[in-house]
Structures are given as structure tokens and as C-alpha cells.
């Protein structure tokens, strides 16, 4: 199974990288771009085929290491 973890700063936490990217896109002419956020994607393989169990495991990984839940939220996909 392939696990994909998306990590983003929580809404309300200032994302200065997202702001800088948004400003750069405005500078290139895409004036309508709003709310750009820069996050992180982490992928890895897992043994077995129990997707529900894998999701529980990967969420535990997120809480312990992959995300800092003080400032970040995450989304897990198992495929």
C-alpha cells in the first residue's frame, strides 16, 4: 500500500511562504490568485492490505512526527 500524507499550516496560522508565492504569482500577471498555501507531501510504502488499519497507523505517525499539530493539520490517503 502507498501512504500519502499532506501537511499544511492550520488556517489562521500565518503562512509567509504561501504569501510570498501568492505575491510572485500576482507579479506574473495572475492577479486573481488568492489564499496560496505552501505545504508538504510525504509518501511511503506500507506492508499488508488492511487500509483502515494502515490509516490508524499513519495518523499515529502524523501525531508523533510527520506534523506538529500545534501549527499544522494533515490529511492521510491510503491507496
Amino acid at each position, binding site marked *: 500500500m502507498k501512504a500519502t500524507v499532506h501537511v499544511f*499550516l492550520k488556517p489562521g*496560522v*500565518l503562512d*509567509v*511562504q504561501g504569501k*510570498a508565492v501568492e505575491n510572485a504569482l500576482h507579479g506574473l500577471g495572475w492577479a486573481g490568485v488568492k489564499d496560496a498555501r505552501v505545504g508538504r507531501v510525504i509518501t511511503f510504502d506500507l506492508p499488508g492490505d488492511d487500509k483502515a488499519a494502515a490509516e490508524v497507523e499513519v495518523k499515529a505517525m502524523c501525531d508523533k*512526527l*510527520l506534523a*506538529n499539530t*500545534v*501549527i499544522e493539520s494533515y490529511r492521510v490517503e491510503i491507496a
Partner: protein
Amino acid sequence: MKAAVIVFPGSNCDRDCKVAIERSTGATVDMVWHGDTDLPDGLDLIVLPGGFSYGDYLRCGAMAALSPVMQAVKAAAERGVATVGICNGFQVLCEAGMLPGALLRNEGLKYVCKPVALEVTNAQTRFTAAYQGRREVTMTVGNGEGNFFADEATLDRLEGQGQVVFRYLDNPNGSARAIAGIINEAGNVLGMMPHPDRAFETDLGSADGALLFQSALASA
């Protein structure tokens, strides 16, 4: 008096901390590698130094917080040993859950490296007693991710319980409520972004950092 400086791969203020503690207090200072599982016996002070531990991979301090030595550091702190995290060390303490909050990318996106004026917000901690009521000190900051963040309830609690130890007089990085340094509820774990280790002799522009190490060891 005995102190230890923890050395992570990518620490770059470990030597500075050792020299700063030795010269300002006369204590002996052991360097402890992050892979060790034990600390030297009889420590009065543990310092987590500045730098870029593990290349800031994933998040600043995230990997270092899971180093083998951190179990021993946590156990020592729970026994009441004075523990100071400076700059990257502050980030490690937050990631390890030993202090609340987190350090975000600086509001202005720039790495900020300059002397800053600090308010000694709480001069009655074991780390600030030697300031003896002095309200303003100067130390140097050097950080790209020094923007202290915590939710409003946590910030209120920190302020209400006197856990804000230092505040920027001119906030260089967007830190919430201009917070530059905090202590835990027990009062023996301090995290701060400014560097006392870069301000321990007047030749360095300020000797105000020496008083912090002297306070920490005098209280042991």
C-alpha cells in the same frame, strides 16, 4: 558546578555555549553526543544549543526532539535540573513537548541576525534572578524561524502564570505578543530565541548573557 551541552548533528553554537558557560560561571562543561542514552551524573545545568540540527529536516528541531539523548534530558528536567534551549534548542524543546507553542517562519521571511533589546518580563525565575530587577538587556538573535506561535488560550496562560521570561522591545520576527523566551510551569525549563551565549563578555557587545548562566547555576 557541572553543566552539559547536547551536541546534535548540525548544532553550531555548541562550542560557543561551552565557552560562555565556562567563562561566565567557572563550571565544568561536558559535551554530550545526541546518540548517547545517558547524561553525566550530578548535572546542574543542561543546554540545548543553537544551530540547524538534522539540517532542519521536516521541521526545525523535529528530528532532534526524537534523539536518544532526549529521553535522558526529559527525565533530568522532570527531576528539576535546570534546562535551557537556545534558538534551535528552543525549537527542540517545543517539538519535544517540554515547552508549549511552536516557532514559525519569520513574519518578514528574512533570516534576522542582530543585537536586540529585551525586556526581562519575569526577573524572579531561576534563570533571571541575577538581573536583580534590571528591566532591559541586550542579546543577539540569529534565526529564520523564530516567530513564536501558540493559540490565544495558551498565550493567556503563559502571561498569567509569569511564564513569559523575555519579550522583544522591537519584535524582529513577528512572535506572538513579542515573546522571546518562556519557561515551563515548574520553572526549570527555559526556551529562548536570543543567544545569551553570544553575549557573555563586553567585547561581544554585551555581557548580559553571562548573568543568565550565573543565575541558572547559582540556583542549582
